[in-house]
């Protein structure tokens, strides 16, 4: 089973993402910030990461950068959530090593379509 790591400081968003992906047949692990996310990623076995950018402790950009340095973080798709369709944020996140993005708020099928786009 494919495992998705969702990193978000908002428990409600994590919940929404987790429900959606669990129903679609993925296994979901959660983290509340970048630092926790790195720990989860380090443990291995994650096939896809969906992360928020704006988080306390360790923000999304730093998290993505650090994740790409981990042997378990290299090469896996990392998608980030952004509230606004902000071109600058996208550029920054891509430079940090993100694979793509999902614009909040999202409809369930949109979300799954993007996941399907980067992970099979």
């Amino acid at each position, binding site marked *: 089973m494919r495992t998705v790591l969702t990193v978000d400081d908002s428990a409600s968003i994590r919940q929404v993402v987790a429900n959606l992906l669990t129903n679609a047949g993925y296994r979901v692990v959660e983290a509340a910030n970048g630092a926790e996310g790195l720990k989860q990623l380090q*443990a*291995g076995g994650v096939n896809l990461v969906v992360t928020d950018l704006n988080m306390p*402790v*360790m923000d999304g950009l730093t998290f993505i950068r*650090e994740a790409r340095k981990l042997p*378990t973080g290299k090469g896996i798709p990392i998608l980030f959530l952004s509230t606004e369709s902000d071109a600058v944020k996208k550029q920054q996140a891509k430079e940090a090593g993100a694979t793509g993005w999902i614009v909040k708020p999202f409809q369930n099928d949109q979300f799954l379509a993007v996941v399907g786009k980067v992970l099979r």
Partner: protein
Amino acid sequence: MAPAATPDQAVDVLTLEIGTEVFAIEATAVREILDLVPVTEVPGARPFVGGVINVRGRIVPLVDMRLRLAMPPAAPTADTRIIVLDIALEGEPTAVGILADRVNEVVQLDLGMLEEAPRLGLRWQPEFIRSVGMRSGRLVVLPDLERILT
């Protein structure tokens, strides 16, 4: 391209000595290691953060763990170093300098070997310890810096 399943349970830690204890700090948190620099005293501050230093233009509080962990004071020696760390204090990323009597090497510490803090054998409060492990026959302490500092 798919990540190989790695048994990557080990973390890189910097080991250092304060008094008779050996501490380990996750290497990812370490920003730099400095020789002793001039320290500016902050009157009225809690004794264990009694000073600040200039780290490349940033004002960084200097923490003396000896005072926090009730160890006897000691004068600095040629081996004394300041370890500058990035940690989160109450959710805010903060740079903190820590005085160490000696800095040893960065080693891989097996997470599996680290144990929950035992309530025996150590001179100080168990809530300050995240976990302990053994390395070359010596007890290594992974301190909970956020608890220690707040």
